[in-house]
């Protein structure tokens, strides 16, 4: 019996090579099926991973309240040239949340300052945030150089600032910003630290580009120099905005209570802000929704994948049935020379498996290459999990066996007399 299997495989390959083009075309179905499974899974995995990371960066223990400018019709009646728009979260909201809400660990207020940031001849419009030192911990900012804001800065109302890496890179392309004097609006601030960039949530459409440039200053300093009234220059008109707090980050002690706190915030805000000048972002809810979306996505991808592999398998079966008919005489000869049914089954099954495994291997190669290309040209993140190519390969080989069984059985059960008479 030794060498029988090797010989069967060799024979199968040489039979397939007899019809090179046909064999190649047959493998294409499996090839594209396999590769599209891998590529789709990699791209889907990458996209959902990216979304989840953005959400996670917001802090899954946090509930984020934001001031939103109400729709214009609330401000009608004000004069066209100068108007004061008053909206948003207030210090009272902050107090209520931190004093009365159970399960809340820390509450961090954020004020945004609409000022340009300059150093030497370089200017930047980053998101300037006046906030407390705990902001770093609550939102998971990482300090890469120097330090973050401290309580001393807060108590001393110091003119210090911390730059995000993106802001630091743009203002100080070659040197370190630590200790340098940065001009925010009309005042000078000593730069004391640099944080790593933070991917901002896409829904946060705060403005120009997807800049991650951020500048942090102490909350008190911001309050002292800029008050709550800010002037925004806008296409010829001056617009006054009065916003006490732009953002309140509520950190919840236990993730179980996130939803409860979020609902409490919703209720409180809907009572006190009839004009709807706020929004609530609950990263945990977004995360759960994203995971649900991913699950559905994977089911859809899985079905598409199985359909494409099914089509590939049918292609193989179709060609093998034609091959069996075409080689009826050969089957008759082999049977007359002593081949048992199992030999004939093995012969055709091996051909199917060689076709599908060949297609599967090429498909895995193509499937691994496609995400790289996509990543390079479409700037999308892709993640190839090790199970995806393995799974795709195993399924494609299985498809070969499954769809080869019927043609092989047909070949094996032919009447030798009839088969020999076949022209």
């Amino acid at each position, binding site marked *: 019996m030794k060498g029988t299997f090797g010989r069967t495989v060799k*024979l199968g390959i040489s039979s397939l090579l007899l019809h090179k083009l046909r064999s190649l075309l047959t493998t294409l179905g499996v090839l594209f099926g396999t590769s599209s499974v891998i590529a789709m899974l990699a791209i889907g995995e990458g996209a959902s991973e990216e979304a989840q990371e953005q959400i996670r960066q917001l802090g899954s223990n946090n509930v984020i309240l934001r001031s939103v400018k109400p729709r214009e019709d609330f401000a009608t009646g004000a004069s066209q040239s100068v108007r004061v728009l008053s909206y948003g979260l207030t210090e009272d909201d902050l107090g209520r949340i931190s004093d009365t809400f159970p399960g809340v660990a820390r509450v961090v207020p954020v004020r945004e300052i609409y000022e340009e940031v300059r150093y030497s001849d370089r200017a930047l419009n980053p998101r300037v945030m006046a906030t407390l030192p705990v902001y770093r911990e609550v939102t998971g900012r990482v300090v890469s150089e120097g330090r973050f804001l401290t309580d001393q800065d807060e108590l001393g109302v110091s003119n210090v600032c911390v730059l995000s890496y993106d802001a630091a890179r743009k203002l100080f392309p070659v040197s370190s910003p630590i200790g340098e004097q940065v001009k925010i609006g009309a005042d000078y601030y000593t730069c004391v630290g640099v944080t790593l960039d933070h991917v901002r949530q896409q829904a946060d459409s705060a403005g120009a580009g997807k800049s991650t440039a951020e500048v942090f200053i102490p909350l008190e300093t911001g309050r002292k120099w800029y008050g709550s009234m800010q002037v925004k220059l806008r296409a010829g008109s001056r617009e006054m905005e009065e916003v006490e707090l732009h953002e309140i980050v509520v950190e919840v002690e236990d993730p179980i209570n996130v939803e409860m706190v979020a609902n409490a915030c919703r209720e409180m805000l809907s009572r006190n802000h009839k004009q709807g000048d706020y929004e609530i972002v609950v990263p945990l809810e977004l995360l759960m929704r994203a995971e649900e979306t991913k699950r559905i996505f994977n089911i859809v991808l899985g079905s598409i994948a199985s359909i494409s592999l099914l089509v590939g398998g049918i292609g193989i079966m179709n060609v093998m049935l034609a091959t069996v008919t075409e080689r009826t005489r050969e089957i008759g000869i082999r*049977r007359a*020379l*002593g081949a048992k*049914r199992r030999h004939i089954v093995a012969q055709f099954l091996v051909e199917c498996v060689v076709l599908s495994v060949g297609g599967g291997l090429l498909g895995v190669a193509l499937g691994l290459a496609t995400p790289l290309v996509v990543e390079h040209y479409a700037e999308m993140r892709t993640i190839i999990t090790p199970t995806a190519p393995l799974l795709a390969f195993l399924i494609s080989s299985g498809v070969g066996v499954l769809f080869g069984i019927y043609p092989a059985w047909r070949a094996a059960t032919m009447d*030798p007399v009839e088969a*020999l008479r076949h022209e």
Partner: protein
Amino acid sequence: MTDSNSKPVAELVGVVREYRMGTNLVRALDDFSFTFGRGEYWAVMGSSGSGKSTLLNVLGCIDRPSQGDYLIDGISTKSLDDDQLSEVRGRKLGFVFQSYNLIPQLNVLENIMVPLFYQDDPPADGEERARKLAERVGLSQRLDHKPTELSGGQQQRVAIARALVNHPALILADEATGNLDSATALEILALFDELHAEGRTIVLVTHEPDVGERAQHVLRLKDGKIESVRRGQNSAAGARA
């Protein structure tokens, strides 16, 4: 009727083979009993529809009698299943077909070895046997040629080598010279004479009288029955005492 001084190679006992053609039942072999003795060289002749092909198929174990029994080398085939019957074909029989029937993907050496592939316990010296047979039929220089690269006569020589590789009890030839020109046909028939001289048992189906004349004995069929049996000692001396 049996050749008394040797055990029969193939024995048909009351064989009936019926086919259904549409609504008609056709008896291709009708209560057919006959014995082919060891070392005999038979030509089976008859017009088309006489049942000679069916006889050959039954002798070759690729067709089964509807009734009766067929014994090959003393083995009753009546109760054998498909696998066992295949094994009998692989061990006891050698086939030579009219259209050679070599396997196109395989080269000469591999084609000769095919019957050995399928034996349950293939001999270890298969390749050696195949080389010797190739040499014997004059094709030792063409072992790695594919069938399409050979002439008809050469292909039939490969087929004869293939029919010998498993040391069969019975060699069956179906119009083995039908596709060959007369000179080549004579060469092939000379090869059969040689095999007969070596003591091999050969049954050759033909409708050509010239070919039939060269055989030791002639069996004529008509309507699935024996029309005549002509025993002779003329050809191929030495096989019979």
